């Protein structure tokens, strides 16, 4: 019984992957200084949520999760577009995309 549960891919495997992705994304966001890498971390977080939605949609039935993930993909792209535009502007102004060195606003 236990081996069977371990050997067949079930909801827990997907959720584990999603949690790992989420943790990796959070890790990237918290430790990295490069704005682009931080945004890549955010993409990981969004995709972790996407995996969750698809998994739950498959195992709970219903199409809401699939729909949700479609919209999330598109939104991630839109967010990436706006984000890259801002980062390009930062690069033009500061000649760096290092978040910690773009820090002139301080009391």
């Amino acid at each position, binding site marked *: 019984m236990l*081996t*069977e549960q371990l*050997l*067949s*891919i079930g909801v827990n495997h997907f959720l584990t992957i999603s949690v790992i992705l989420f943790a990796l994304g959070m890790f990237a966001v918290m430790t990295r200084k490069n704005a682009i890498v931080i945004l890549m971390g955010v993409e990981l977080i969004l995709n972790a949520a996407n995996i969750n939605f698809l998994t739950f949609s498959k195992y709970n039935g219903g199409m809401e999760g699939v729909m949700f993930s*479609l919209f999330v*993909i*598109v939104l991630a*792209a*839109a967010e*990436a*577009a706006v984000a*890259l*535009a801002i980062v*390009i502007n930062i*690069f*033009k102004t500061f000649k760096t995309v290092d978040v910690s060195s773009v820090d002139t606003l301080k009391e």
Partner: protein
Amino acid sequence: MDQTLSGFGTVFVFLVLGIVFVAGGYLTARMLRPSRPNPEKNSTYECGEPAVGSAWVKFNIRFYVVALIFIIFDVEVVFLYPWATVFKPLGPFALVEVLIFAGILALGLIYAWVKGDLDWVRPTPNIPKMPEMPNRRIGKANG
């Protein structure tokens, strides 16, 4: 366990087949080919051009601008595909909806176009001066 493969079994078979396929290709090539290396052969292949500089160069920032605009139209397909699968039963209503959707996106493209974000401004080329350029003169004469 019964005879059918579990989910992991399928993945495992795929993995093994993949490794065998790639490794087999390399192995056969290694056994058949003669080994006569020279510096020209060992250099990176870059479409026949001699490789210049490191691979880690900063790309021109204009590529990113085009990429930004591309992204929007790239993911548009995500919405068009589900629409296309149910287009026939939904009829004219869905067509109008998608036209509105595409129209808004087209407006965005027109905006970027008119504002000049699509213009590919060539940088003024900074050609190093050479002592003599016979080839160039020939090229000009020819046309």
